[in-house]
């Protein structure tokens, strides 16, 4: 009896100890519930709002505050990101020169062979450019922040915003090809949706056959995983090494004729009776730095604009 009582005492002492701990740092259930409900409310608001979500003004305000900080941090980091390039050996450089010479020779051969095609193309080109003067200029910008994979969206921030003449749905390119489109802008920054984002769909056209289709992101930064191309016409089979360009329109988010990537593999799906091709993007998304945003020619900007004819204004 005594022993039992003693044991009970001991247990009770332990319980009181736990109680003391609980009271000292009581995790407030009500607060947790309130905050979780607040989060769910936010999610609901944002989901139901769609394009004109009530969260959008809040995003803009936070963006205005964080944009300059991100630009400053990126500017501070930039000198250090160049450091690995200093340590390239002579062997590396020699290899690179050899590779470049080889590809240069190959390209020259192609150009010489393509003389006839080019002449014909020039006529068409003159015709189309006379019909629809694209008249777009490029606003140069640098990438200052990248979304993390944890957040599952492939977006970047660039250091040019509405002050530089940038608005939503403008096309973003770099010297290799299509990068993405502008989602939203603040005064000094803009958020760009990359074409590798799973939510991104670009109207694409196969270079050789002019067949149109849709290019969606695969949600991976790996170059080989690339993008998915589905052609509208099920009967046409895209060929490997063919270039895919945007078909776009001057009113839509993507300007026409911007190169997206090259076809690396073609699968035919029996179940869906359609052709699926893997497109390797021309842009290296893991090393994005300088990009250009296509703005209407002659638009006002706080920085030098590269005009369509190559002049700087």
């Amino acid at each position, binding site marked *: 009896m005594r022993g039992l009582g003693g044991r009970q005492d001991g247990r009770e002492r332990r319980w009181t100890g736990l109680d003391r701990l609980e009271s000292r*740092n009581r995790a407030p259930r009500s607060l947790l519930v309130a905050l979780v409900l607040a989060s769910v409310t936010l999610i609901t608001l944002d989901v139901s709002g769609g394009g004109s979500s009530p969260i959008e003004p809040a995003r803009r305000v936070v963006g205005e505050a964080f944009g300059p*900080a*991100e630009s400053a941090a990126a500017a501070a980091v930039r000198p250090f*990101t160049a450091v690995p390039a200093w340590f390239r050996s002579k062997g590396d450089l020699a290899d690179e020169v050899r590779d470049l010479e080889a590809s240069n020779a190959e390209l020259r051969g192609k150009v010489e062979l393509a003389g006839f095609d080019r002449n014909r193309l020039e006529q068409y080109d003159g015709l189309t450019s006379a019909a629809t003067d694209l008249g777009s200029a490029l606003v140069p910008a640098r990438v200052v922040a*990248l*979304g*993390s994979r944890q*957040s599952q969206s492939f*977006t970047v921030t660039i250091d040019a915003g509405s002050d530089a003449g940038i608005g939503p749905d403008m096309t973003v390119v770099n010297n290799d090809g299509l990068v993405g489109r502008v989602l939203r802008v603040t005064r000094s920054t803009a958020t760009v*949706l990359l074409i590798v984002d799973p939510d991104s769909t670009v109207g694409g056209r196969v270079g050789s056959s002019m067949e149109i289709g849709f290019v969606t992101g695969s949600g991976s930064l790996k170059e080989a995983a690339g993008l998915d191309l589905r052609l509208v016409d099920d009967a046409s089979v895209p060929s490997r090494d063919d270039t895919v360009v945007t078909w776009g329109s001057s009113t839509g988010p993507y300007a026409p004729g911007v190169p997206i990537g090259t076809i690396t593999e073609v699968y035919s799906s029996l179940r869906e009776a359609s052709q699926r091709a893997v497109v390797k993007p021309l842009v290296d998304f893991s090393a994005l730095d300088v990009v250009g945003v296509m703005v209407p020619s002659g638009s006002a900007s706080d920085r030098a604009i590269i005009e369509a004819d190559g002049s700087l204004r």
Partner: protein
Amino acid sequence: MSYLRWLAALAAVVVALTLQVSLFPHVAWHGIVPNLCLLVVVAAALTVEAPFALVLGFVAGITLDLAPPADHIAGRWALALTVAAFLAARVRQDQKPTALAVIGTVAASSFVATSLFALTGVVLKDPTMSVSGLLEVVLVAVVWDVLLTPFVLPPLMKLFTRLSPQWATT
């Protein structure tokens, strides 16, 4: 004192977020970066009272949801970080946590927060991602967070302890 503590906590969140989007992408592994905001929240949960940590988790989450270049549905990180803060505050002991306990808490919170974020994405079909891809993201994120713990947690915990002595663990 309370104002000062809030100011310090918010400044820590801002600095963490800026580093997370501007510095760490340069050293990221397949685009996965350490979640510094989560580390700030866990540091608060391990040193100061739970309500503060919970609200800080919510605020840090909202900031992650809204600051550019975020484009996912707002509120998802807020939910994930609030729950992570709650869990971290639950496991907190009365005495000063050992190094191992801190690392364990960070790993568990990181796992829970990233998984919860991924799960809300699956439920909302925000982006459609493969399960293996999600698993890779979650595990690499845990490794990143644990790797950075020795450099981030001790100074932050010292800061929070100094700013709120009445809650400090001895």
